[in-house]
Structure formats: structure tokens, C-alpha cells
């Protein structure tokens, strides 16, 4: 990175621990507001439990609505963490350093939000334990053919793996906080959490190996999670638009599109809120913007192939569904908004370097992407179910109720609150990684030019 700012280790500690050891003025207000939204959502959910699923807009034939849309959306967002961290770590991309933790932490909270959506959707959450065999002596087992077993199993595995991933990368930073925390309990808690970290060569070696191993191990889980979510739809042959073999890779690349966009969005927010201009440079936004051009274009190609093959069948129900999505209100407006916001507005924007290097414009364009990707999931799920079948007894449409809207809003507030709380207790930019980045950075002079370089250990 040519725009690199060389900082002393003390300066890095001071900057990146400012949010942990102190408290910005806006912090309490933001937490209060998010708690209010969450409380409203929980209240709405309590009402739903009390009255039953009838208070939602779900009815025959549309029995999967906002909650499932939101579930798929949050699973998608969760893919950013591993995409950014594991893959960029394995490929030794230097620009990853300040970005990784934001992405990893977002993974954890978005997975929790996704899991909660399944609970909101089932209507009788107290029966959730049926997902797992709860009493071997009775010979009762879960129905392994059900998506309600696949999804929690995959998502829980991913959640555990991602939490370990974050924790291992966090240990050296917790030790830094331990040494600076004041009060009666904080040093003790941080002391316990950092597992006696002293920064010996052996500890560093083990930490690095664990990070690489977890990166490699969590990658297949990352792929499996959204594949399984996509198969919830794709293996069903009764709903037009769902039974498509491309769904698994299509969902994954869509997830990466929305997830990486969300990371760029949070990077901009973090930069503004914690004044991290020295760490999150225009170069980082530029790198993410380039990555997003590739990801978005690939995603659009998958979308295009999915559509072509839907038309290629020449089966009238499939064609009728596509007609409903594109030519009939209200779906046609949503479809138009989806295309514009997920691809046709942001990607041309990212083609300009000045846009990619502007945190404000990147923030704006990536918000658009996530609006578009939420709509994409909605348009996959709802029109397929709502399409009128030959038998008229269950003709109907879907309108989300206020309960669903409040509960969905709660998940957004939950993730935001989680990120805020995390950043209050732990550094949101990895301190040790930034210091390492400063150490391995070099320059090579070639003629009159100075080329940025980095140190690699000889194999």
C-alpha cells in the first residue's frame, strides 16, 4: 500500500484501545436506541407467541415469508467473515489486516440473527429441541430429512467454528487490554480470557498455526452452510423457480456479494465513529471495491444463467412464475429495484477509482447492494409460493404484518448492537495484526521508483 502511514506501536495501542478503555459520547445513545428497537421486536415476537402465527402475514399458499427471507439474508451476510478473513489470510493479502475482525465479528452476530429467524418462523419455538435427539432411551430421533435439522446443524457448526476463529485471533489483543484495564474485575476477566498469553515465540507460533488451520477447516463449513440453505429450496420440486441445480453456488456467490458489501459499509461506519482514518485508508476501500466488482459480476452471471435455464425448460408454470416476477405488480417493482440496487447502480459506480476510494460513496453503494440482496431473497421465496395454481382453493397473496416488520427490524438492531458491544470490550481492528503489518512492510527502490514490498519468510 503506497498510502501507508507508519505508526509507532504505542500510537497503535492508544488509537485502537481508545474505544475499549474510554467511551465515545455517542455510544450510550446508540446502544439505547438499538435496545429500544430490540425491545419492540421482542415485544412483537411475544405477541406472536401468545396469539400464534396468525398475527403474521403468512397464510396459504405463502407459508414462508419475511422470516425466511431474513434468515437467508443474514446467512448471506455471515459469509463475509470467512471470505475476508480465511481466504485473504491464506492468500497473504496484506490489505486484509484492518478489515478482518470487523468481518469475523459480523459473521458471528449475523449467524445468531439468522438462527433467531428460524425460531420466529416455526411458531412453536418451545418445540425446537426436537431438532436434536433429546432422549436416547426413548428411541426418539430427529427427522434428518427435514431442513429444520440441516439448517441448525450447519449454522451451529459454522457459528462454533467462526467463534473459535475470532477468539484465536483475539487472544494477543485481549492480553494487551488485560495489561491496561483498570478496576477490580476487568483485568481478571481479560486475564482469564487471554489464556495466560505472554507473547512467547511458542505462543505466537501456536496462534499462527491455529489461525491457518481454522482458516482451512472453516472454509468447507462456509461452503456447506449456504449450500444447505439453498437446498432447502432447490430439492423441492413443487414450487416453480426453486428446483434449480445452480442454487448452491448461486446462493454462495450472492452471499459473498452481500457480505463483502456489508463489511465495506461497516468499515466506513467504524472509520467515522472511532476516527480510524490512519488504519482504514482509501486503499482498503479501493481493494474491497475491486473485489466487489469481480464478485458482483460473477454473481450476475450466475443470476443470468439461472434465468436462462428457467426459460429454457419451456414449461408453462415456470414461464408463468417468471412473468409474475417481472411483469406483475408489486413484484415487478421489487424486481426492478433489486436489479438496480444489487448490480446496475453499484457496479458502474465501482468502476471509477474515485468512487472506490471514497468511504462515503462506498458506504452508499454497499447499502444499495444489501437492499438489493434482501429483495433478491424475497423474490426467490415469495412469488414461487404465491403463484396461482390450477386449483383455486388456496389462491392468495402475501403482505407482511407489522409484527413481522418489527421482528425483522429487531434482527438488524441485534446485529448492530452486538457489533457495538463487542467494540466496547475488544479492539475492533486487530492490534497485533496491524503491528505485524508495520513490521513486514518494506520498500524496494527500482531506478527512480519506490515499490511497496512486504517480507515473506523463506520456505
Amino acid at each position: 500500500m503506497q498510502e501507508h502511514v507508519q505508526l509507532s506501536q504505542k500510537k497503535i495501542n492508544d488509537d485502537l484501545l481508545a474505544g475499549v478503555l474510554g467511551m465515545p459520547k455517542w455510544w450510550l445513545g446508540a446502544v439505547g436506541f438499538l435496545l429500544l428497537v430490540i425491545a419492540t421486536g421482542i415485544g412483537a415476537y411475544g405477541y406472536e407467541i401468545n396469539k400464534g402465527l396468525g398475527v403474521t402475514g403468512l397464510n396459504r399458499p405463502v407459508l414462508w415469508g419475511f422470516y425466511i427471507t431474513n434468515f437467508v439474508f443474514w446467512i448471506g451476510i455471515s459469509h463475509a467473515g470467512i471470505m475476508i478473513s480465511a481466504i485473504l489470510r491464506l492468500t497473504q493479502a496484506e490489505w486484509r489486516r484492518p478489515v478482518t475482525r470487523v468481518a469475523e465479528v459480523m459473521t458471528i452476530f449475523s449467524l445468531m440473527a439468522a438462527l433467531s429467524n428460524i425460531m420466529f418462523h416455526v411458531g412453536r419455538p418451545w418445540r425446537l429441541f426436537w431438532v436434536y435427539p433429546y432422549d436416547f432411551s426413548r428411541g426418539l430421533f430427529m427427522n434428518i430429512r427435514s431442513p429444520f435439522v440441516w439448517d441448525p446443524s450447519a449454522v451451529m457448526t459454522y457459528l462454533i467454528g467462526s467463534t473459535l476463529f475470532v477468539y484465536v485471533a483475539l487472544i494477543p489483543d485481549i492480553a494487551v487490554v488485560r495489561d491496561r484495564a483498570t478496576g477490580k474485575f476487568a483485568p481478571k476477566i481479560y486475564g482469564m480470557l487471554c489464556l495466560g498469553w505472554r507473547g512467547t515465540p511458542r505462543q505466537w507460533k501456536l496462534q499462527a498455526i491455529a489461525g491457518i488451520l481454522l482458516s482451512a477447516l472453516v472454509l468447507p463449513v462456509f461452503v456447506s452452510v449456504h449450500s444447505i440453505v439453498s437446498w432447502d429450496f432447490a430439492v423441492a420440486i413443487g414450487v416453480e423457480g426453486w428446483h434449480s441445480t445452480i442454487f448452491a453456488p448461486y446462493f454462495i456467490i450472492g452471499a459473498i456479494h452481500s457480505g463483502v458489501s456489508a463489511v465495506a459499509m461497516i468499515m466506513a461506519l467504524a472509520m467515522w465513529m472511532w476516527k480510524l482514518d490512519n488504519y482504514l485508508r482509501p486503499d482498503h476501500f479501493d481493494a474491497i471495491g475491486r473485489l466487489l466488482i469481480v464478485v458482483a459480476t460473477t454473481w450476475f452471471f450466475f443470476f443470468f444463467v439461472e434465468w436462462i435455464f428457467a426459460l429454457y425448460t419451456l414449461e408453462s408454470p415456470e414461464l408463468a412464475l417468471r412473468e409474475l416476477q417481472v411483469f406483475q405488480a408489486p413484484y415487478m417493482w421489487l424486481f426492478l429495484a433489486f436489479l438496480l440496487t444489487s448490480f446496475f447502480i453499484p457496479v458502474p459506480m465501482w468502476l471509477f477509482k474515485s468512487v472506490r476510494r471514497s468511504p462515503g460513496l462506498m458506504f452508499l453503494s454497499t447499502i444499495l447492494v444489501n437492499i438489493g440482496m434482501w429483495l433478491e431473497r424475497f423474490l426467490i421465496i415469495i412469488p414461487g409460493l404465491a403463484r396461482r395454481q390450477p386449483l383455486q382453493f388456496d389462491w392468495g397473496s402475501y403482505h407482511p404484518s407489522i409484527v413481522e416488520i418489527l421482528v425483522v427490524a429487531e434482527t438488524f438492531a441485534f446485529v448492530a448492537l452486538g457489533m457495538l458491544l463487542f467494540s466496547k470490550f475488544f479492539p475492533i481492528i486487530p492490534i497485533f495484526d496491524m503491528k505485524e503489518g508495520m513490521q513486514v512492510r518494506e520498500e524496494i527502490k527500482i531506478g527512480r521508483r519506490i515499490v511497496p514490498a512486504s517480507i515473506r519468510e523463506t520456505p
Partner: protein
Amino acid sequence: MASHNASGHNEEHHAEGMYVPFTSQREVVNDLVTKHDKISDKWLSGVAAAGFLLVLGVIGFVMRVNDGVSDRMVWAYYAMMFSFILTTASAAPMVAIAPRLANAHWRRPVSRVAELWSAAGIFSLLLFIPMLWILPPLTDGRRSLWFYNSDDPFFSKVPVYSPHIWTTAALLSLAALGIMLLWLSAMPDLALMREHSTGWKQKWSARLSGRWIGTTEQWNMLHHRMGIVGALYFMMLVFVHYLVSTDFLMTLVPGWIDSLYPLTHAANSLQAGVATVILTMFFLRKFGGYEDYFTLDQFWAMSKLLFALSLLWFWFWFSSFNVFWYGKKPSEQAVLKYLMVGSYQPAFMAGFILSFVTPLLVMMWNRVRKSFWGPTIMSVAVLAGTFFDRLRLYVAAWSYPGVGDYRVDKHEIPFDSIPAANMPGVPDVLIVLGVIGGAVLFYLLAARLIPPVSIWEQKELMLYKLHKAYHRTEVLVLGKPR
């Protein structure tokens, strides 16, 4: 932050990490130009062997021509070999494009090895020509990407030879882009040959290198153009696989509607392309005298790619299989029965084991990945697996009775009447050998015209790398130009 002068440090000799065996750029030039100028016995033997195989293939082709073009079943192995070359040789240049875009230094000796396979792209274009006569027009009622429908007033206007027209155009574009990429990347080396070679080679390189003298403007333009042509090559490669795997494969098997398969076809080709390049590297190292350039760095990096793409093979295959198998739709069950568990089961199992199971079990070990023999043997396995995978799909599709016959249902295979496997005859075996020989011959001839190791990229690496002491160890410093 220290600043170092590259030239000062490169005078040291280091055995590991982005190894360059020479201390000056002049030595690199001399070594590579001398190697390229010399016509070795091994190269002549290779040309003779490949030429002999090609002659056998031509004999097989003539025998098949005598059978006529009306029965597509006899051309099934020919179609399979066309797709095999498209999958392997035409995908190999991607190994040059992607790491170059990512600025990976290990790719420097590998780039040209990969780009030279563009020459075989011309061969795949030649192989495609007879297929234009063999594949029927869309009038038989089969599904098509071009939505031809004789009963519809609008779609009846679609040209009935649309698959032929568009696939030809795409293949032509792919071949042209491949040659353009090779030429662009070779231009600085051709200019060097213009200065250092003699005879016909000097004339040839003078003509092709144009006015290249290596000004800053020319270098900037070259990098820019290579980036654009590389990106276009990748897009065209995916598009060609999309067209071929749909119009020349899937539409021939009634009921086979697999939206993922065009991408699977392309992903498989990336895996086979990497395997092709690893195998070529091995031969150049073993028999071409390039052991100083193809070191563990290159084999290690390439084997990681091969391993990742082998895992991708499984994921794509399983994504399609699971949806068909779990969905239990009769038409899709029949397709599975025909292509995987029925007559072509041995070929499917061979493909599955060689393209996925073996690479997974063997290449998960770093010791294997970081060796010369491990990636090479796995490349052979992957190429053999790709061969069997293409065999079970293309031979099955081209042998399905009724293609071209409008009276036969094009939308569903009857589950109980799965056709038997089409076993190869003598002409088919000759064609298989001939096509492999032809592709290798094209490569060997191209490697006589253009150095198989990029001279300018090797020289550039000497500028971007240096070794330095760091506390108690020694580290490699690599420059990453923007």
C-alpha cells in the same frame, strides 16, 4: 521503514524462495535464448511421436468419414475428444491470466508455459469444423438455448443453425484472444530474440515484435492490454463452455436440465488446465533443461490451485447430483441412471475417483503438494479423470438415439429404456490418440517459435525481490507494484 536497492542484494545467491539461478539479467537472457535456439534430440523425438499419433488420428478420422455424418453415434468419441481438448488445452492459459492479475510472483516462469497452450486452441477450432455437419439443426424439437420453436410465430424466426453459428463465433473469438494474449506477452521476448538470435528466427521475431524497444509507455500499454485481453479470454472461455455444454451436450439428452452444468463444465476445465500446465512444467524441467526455473515454488503454488479446484469439482458435482437425487423427479432420475449409475457407471466412477477422491486423499498432505512428483502424478490422475468424465457425458449424449428425429420425445428419457453404453471401435481409439498427439504437436511447434519461459518476467522478478537479514533469520522481500 528501510529502503533497499534491488540490484545490490540480488548479487547474493540463494537456494530457496523465488529462486533465480543467475546474478544478472544478462545471464538470464543468455541462458534462455541459448536454450530456445538449440534444437534438442528430445524435442525432435517429441515432435516425431506426436506427429505419428496425429497420423493415426487422421486415419481414424478418415475411417469415420467413410461411415458418413448421418449417424451421430459413430462420432461420439470424436465429440468427446473435441471437448477434452477444449477442457484441457484451451483452459491452460488461465493459469497465466489469473496469477498475473493477482500479481503473484511464482507465476513468472509458468505464464508462458500456460499461454503457449493457446496454440492448441487453433487445433480445437479445427476439430470443431466436422461437428458442424454432424449435429442436426434445431428442427427436431429438442430444447435449445436459442428458444427455437416452429409453432411460435416469433421464435420460429430463430435460425435453426443457431448453435452452430454462435459456437463457431465463440470458438473463433477464443482462439483469436488466446493467440493475441500469447503474442502480447511474448512481444518483449521477441524483441530480445530480434537482437540475439540469427537466421529465420531473427526475421520472424523482428516481424512480430514490431517497434518494441521497451519504453515506459510501451511497457504500461503492454500491461494494460494483457490485463484486458486476459479478462476477455476468461469471459470467452466461460461463454464457450456455456454454449458447448448446453447446445452440444445437454440438449441431446432428453430431460437433462441442469442450470449449474455449464459452470461445472467451465470449472472442470480450470482444474484440467492447471493439471495440463503442471504436467508441461514437469516435462520442461525433466527433458527441456529448465530445472532452474521450475522449482518447488512453482510446483507448490500450482498444486494448491489443483487441490482447491479438485474440491470445487466435488462441490459442483454434488450440487447438481443432490438436487436431482433428492428431488426424485422421474425425468431427472432417468438422467442420473443414464449418465451415472447405468451403462456409463465405470466411466463415472473412474472420473469421480481420479478427479476428486485421489487428489483429495493425496494432496491434502503438504509434503505431497510441496514436491515435484506429487503434483505431477496428481495431474496425470486429474487429466485421466477428466477424460473419463467427458467420455461418460459426451459419448452418452451423442449416442442417445433419436437426436435429429422429430418423432422422438426430446423432453424425457423413459426410465425403463436406458440405452446401452457405446463402446469404442478401432477408429475411435485412433481418434483419441490422434487428438492428443495433435494438441501436443501444436504445443511443441509453438514452443519452437516462442521461448517457453518468459524472459522478461524472469528479469522483472530480479528487480522485485531481495533477501535480507531480519533479526536472527533471513527473509525474502517481495515488491508488489500497483
